[in-house]
């Protein structure tokens, strides 16, 4: 059965920041230079081809865009202006929006207004929560200090409520992400597929998911290992923070000031340093625009970096102010921190750039499953 | 007796003769037994020439022309090839060893190949020994 070429798809794709893919004349250099492209999972060229021809179904069932870590070698060696790396990046945005059933992802990616509005909305809600709701529930900000001379954080941000909120937020995000991943799974493994994958393979290869999440071994195959390192620092910092904040909040958000070598502080410092280092590389890269991968920045890229930076810096500020007994500053930075963090988690993780933290390892997993697929 | 074979070679002017010259300008070394006759085109080489060379005592006859498709006169070398094939069949019937008649294509840049060819052919002729054609024919004539 032949598939219909759909030139109209261009109008959709173009909203995700995709440049002029028609410049590609199919020399094959990009696929050849890419260390991650392999038998059965050829990219970027083949994906560019699908875009050029508007083969929507084939595009949406592609796992390859997630296998790309954007080292930029393809764009560097591209003899035309096709910029394959950026096209893959854009394609990930498109796919993210496709996995998302709420439709919000597409809105966020294609409309800056929508994205900013939601960020501001969530931020406003956070501010209202701290200034109006929590006080009304009896949690007031106090200038009193703890015995150690630290700020009493729990007074205005009661740990149990914040924890409930964290868990709720994590639940929402997880629900969205998992449902999206299921859709991703459906697109990649099931939909219109002529092959099937046995349950045993699913189980056997599951370790890949964890392994890839933790280490990103694929990324390390890119020729320039520095990117992998900075990304891994960022990722690990972020993950530690996320786990600590959501799962171990009571242990983390304490009023007691532990010694510097205490695991709580060490973990926090490590996470912060990792985050800041990774962010620094990204920000400087995007500003200097020397490396190919940083040459084209979509609004969503900038927003993500900025918000993460703000989250990290406000987090640091909370810490500094808290242990130095500066209640007002702590209060303000805490609210600011939450006003950045919450929209970031709620928007970036399920709907936007941050979702790749789930899609990538799953994509590796799915790709592995596809290798063991047998005809139906 | 120390056998010194004589090989008469017919070379076309444009490719083979130039190639033989190149062997010289490139100072390649080959056996001194060859005597080259220049013709404009290998298509000029008449079986009469070949047979006469044998009759006169040549131990071998070598024909060289341009590679197929390269003929300066378009197709002369093909005609040479066809005649060569026919005359080869004839001399076989006449009891002349096939090693004694050889056709090779030599281009103007194949000086080395020419030198090698001469050496190979000389070696082959040394192996088959002196030609008996002339001596056979010499005893044949009764007149004088």
């Amino acid at each position, binding site marked *: 059965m032949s598939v219909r070429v759909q030139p109209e798809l261009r109008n959709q794709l173009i909203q995700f920041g995709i440049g002029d893919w028609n410049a590609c*004349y199919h020399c094959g250099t990009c696929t050849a230079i890419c260390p991650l492209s392999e038998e059965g999972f050829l990219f970027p060229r083949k994906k560019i081809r699908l875009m050029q021809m508007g083969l929507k179904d084939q595009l949406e069932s592609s796992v390859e865009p997630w296998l790309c870590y954007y080292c930029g070698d393809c764009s560097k060696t591209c003899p035309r202006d096709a910029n394959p790396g950026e096209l893959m990046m854009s394609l990930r945005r498109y796919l993210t929006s496709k996995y998302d059933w709420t439709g919000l992802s597409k809105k966020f990616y294609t409309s800056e207004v929508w994205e900013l509005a939601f960020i501001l909305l969530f931020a406003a809600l956070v501010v209202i929560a701290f200034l109006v709701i929590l006080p009304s529930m009896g949690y007031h900000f106090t200038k009193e200090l703890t015995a150690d001379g630290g700020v009493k954080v729990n007074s205005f941000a009661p740990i149990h409520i914040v924890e409930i909120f964290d868990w709720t937020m994590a639940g929402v995000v997880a629900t969205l992400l998992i449902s999206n991943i299921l859709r991703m799974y459906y697109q990649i493994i099931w939909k219109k597929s002529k092959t099937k994958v046995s349950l045993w393979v699913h189980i056997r290869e599951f370790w890949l998911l964890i392994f890839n999440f933790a280490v990103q071994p694929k990324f390390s195959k890119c020729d320039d290992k520095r990117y992998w390192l900075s990304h891994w620092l960022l990722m690990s910092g972020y993950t530690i923070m996320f786990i600590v904040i959501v799962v171990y909040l009571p242990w983390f958000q304490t009023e007691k000031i532990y010694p510097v070598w205490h695991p709580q502080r060490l973990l926090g410092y490590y996470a912060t340093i990792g985050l800041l280092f990774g962010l620094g590389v990204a920000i400087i890269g995007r500003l200097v625009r020397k490396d190919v991968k940083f040459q084209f920045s979509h609004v969503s890229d900038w927003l993500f970096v900025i918000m993460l930076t703000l989250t990290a810096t406000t987090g640091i500020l909370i810490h500094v102010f808290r242990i130095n007994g500066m209640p007002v500053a702590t209060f303000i930075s805490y609210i600011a921190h939450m006003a950045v963090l919450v929209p970031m988690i709620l928007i970036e993780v399920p709907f936007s750039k941050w979702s790749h933290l789930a899609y990538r390892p799953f994509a590796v997993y799915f790709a592995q499953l596809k290798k063991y697929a047998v005809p139906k | 007796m120390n056998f010194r074979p004589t090989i008469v070679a017919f070379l076309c002017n444009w490719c083979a003769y130039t190639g033989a010259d190149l062997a010289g300008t490139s100072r390649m070394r080959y056996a001194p037994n060859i005597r080259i006759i220049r013709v404009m085109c290998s298509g000029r080489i008449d079986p009469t020439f070949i047979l006469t060379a044998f009759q006169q005592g040549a131990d071998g006859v070598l024909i060289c022309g341009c590679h197929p498709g390269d003929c300066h006169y378009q197709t002369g070398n093909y005609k040479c090839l066809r005649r060569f094939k026919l005359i080869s069949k004839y001399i076989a019937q006449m009891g002349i060893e096939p090693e004694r008649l050889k056709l090779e294509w030599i281009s103007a*840049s194949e000086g080395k190949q020419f030198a090698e060819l001469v050496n190979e052919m000389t070696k082959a002729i040394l192996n088959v020994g002196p030609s008996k054609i002339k001596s056979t024919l010499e005893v044949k004539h009764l007149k004088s």
Partner: protein
Amino acid sequence: MRMTEATGIFFYNPINGIQDPIDYGELSAYIKKYPAVKNMFYYDDFPWNEENILAKIRSCGLERLIIAGSKPGIVKTLFAKVMAIEGKDPDKVILASFNEYGIRRKTDINRAKSVLACAIEGVPFEMAAMPDDLPVNPATLIIGAGIAGIQAAIEIANSNNLVYLVEKSGTIGGKMATFDKTFPTLDCAACILTPKMVEVNQHTHIKLMTCCEILEVAGDPGNFNVRILKRTRRVNVATCIGCGTCTEKCPAQAPSEFDAGTTMRKAIYIPFPQAVPNKYMIDAESCIYIKNGKCKACVKACPVPDCINLDEQDQEVTLQVGNIIVAAGYKVFDAKRMPQYGYGVFPNVLTSLEFERLLNASGPTGGNITFRSQDKKGNWIFSPDSEKPESLAIIHCIGSRDKNYNKFCSRVCCMYSLKFAHLILDKLPEARVYEYFIDMRSFGKGYEEFYERIKEEGVSIIRGKTAKVEEKNGKLQIRGEDILLSKIIENSVDMVILSVGLEPSEDTENLCRILKIPQSEGGWMEEANYNTDPTGTIKGGIMIAGTCQGPKDIPDTVAQGSAAAARVIRNILNGKVSKDIDTIPLEKIENRIHELSSIK
């Protein structure tokens, strides 16, 4: 009758996304004096679409539309469509195409004015802009003695006119002399070229000047004064008998230019055995005497008294000529600029020119394909004693069709690569041969048939260019995408041949400066008119031929060589030559336009 039809001028100034450098303000001010011009519109004025242009035609009552700009053809169809909708004659959409007449720079404004004026008055520019004639000196200078220069020289000399054939190197023959076989007929380059070289040498009307460079060209068309630097050979061409005794005795070595550096030659040498003139020359850079003041082994060995003079100096000579043909040729792309392919790092990554020598029966290995190896002194050379490769890969488009290097297509690489594949299998029937290509450009007579033939010979022809060459276990590792089979191919081969593209030769820029002829994109010499005068230039009496105008294969080069000669012979027969187009004053063109439009 002068043109009175209501004409609208549309200035289309973007060219490839940027604005072209023509001063359209000045242009529009200039053409106001033409009564036919009703309105002028700029590209920025309003979006050029159907409705807007239709509206302008209606509101201004336009009967004729002139689109003026560097490449106005790009929007022509829109205007034709609008005219058709309006029920008007779409042929009345006229192009004033500046690019066509070499108008690229701000300084070309006068020519732009005249082109536009011609369009307005409906007079062909070629007929309005007729430069004055000057008397012509029948001698001709040809710069470059490759096949284009040789061809042009023979053509002109055969008309009984004197030709100075000036060549920078020590022999004529150019690049073609280094080739083994020529595609697609596979006839040997030497077989067909050397007779022409000999003909040049023996022609009574050709004065051959090797080791010469052009320093300055002064004077007017028809009477150029050319200053030439005659680099000394240090060997007397008149008395040298070409015996080669000197070379035997010479102790100094240098990489052979003719063999593309794949073998060593002596400091006193003959570029190649069939060189014309077949005389020795000394390379000052490697000569021990010239460097250290001691040696003279060649002088002692030379059987001809006073033939070698190591202390001879360069000279300057001056020639008077009427016409000049530039046939300065090309150089190949420097593969070291693409480090990913490992040229210069891995000894068995070769450029096509090196491989051409390796294949050549008169090359360093006598036509055997062998590995590059080091000689006793450590020079990397090809020697016939080395091992033979069992697998070879040919990678197309090295340095061509690539915005990072050269955007243009080099036109010959596909075919010579196919030829390589064939010759490899011819010499190494067991070898595996891979070709990596993007588009197979086998466009010429018999080329497609050749391509089909190679496909049947068992060469792996893979659509998909490779990205890099790496070394692994002593083999060269190549990774590529086989686009048609949707596969990644990782081949490990013994030898890689890079089909390097063509670039204007080192001297092109300098010559363009000396001759005052412009360069096109990519640095090639610019022709007078892309279609109708591919071998002329905007300068009177100066013609270009062969690859200095753009990459081309041998038959196209030869045709251009002859074509350039045609104009020279014509000039000589007429006894006159046109001045540069630039020399015609604008008023004169205007008068001529007036005259021509009045006749109609």
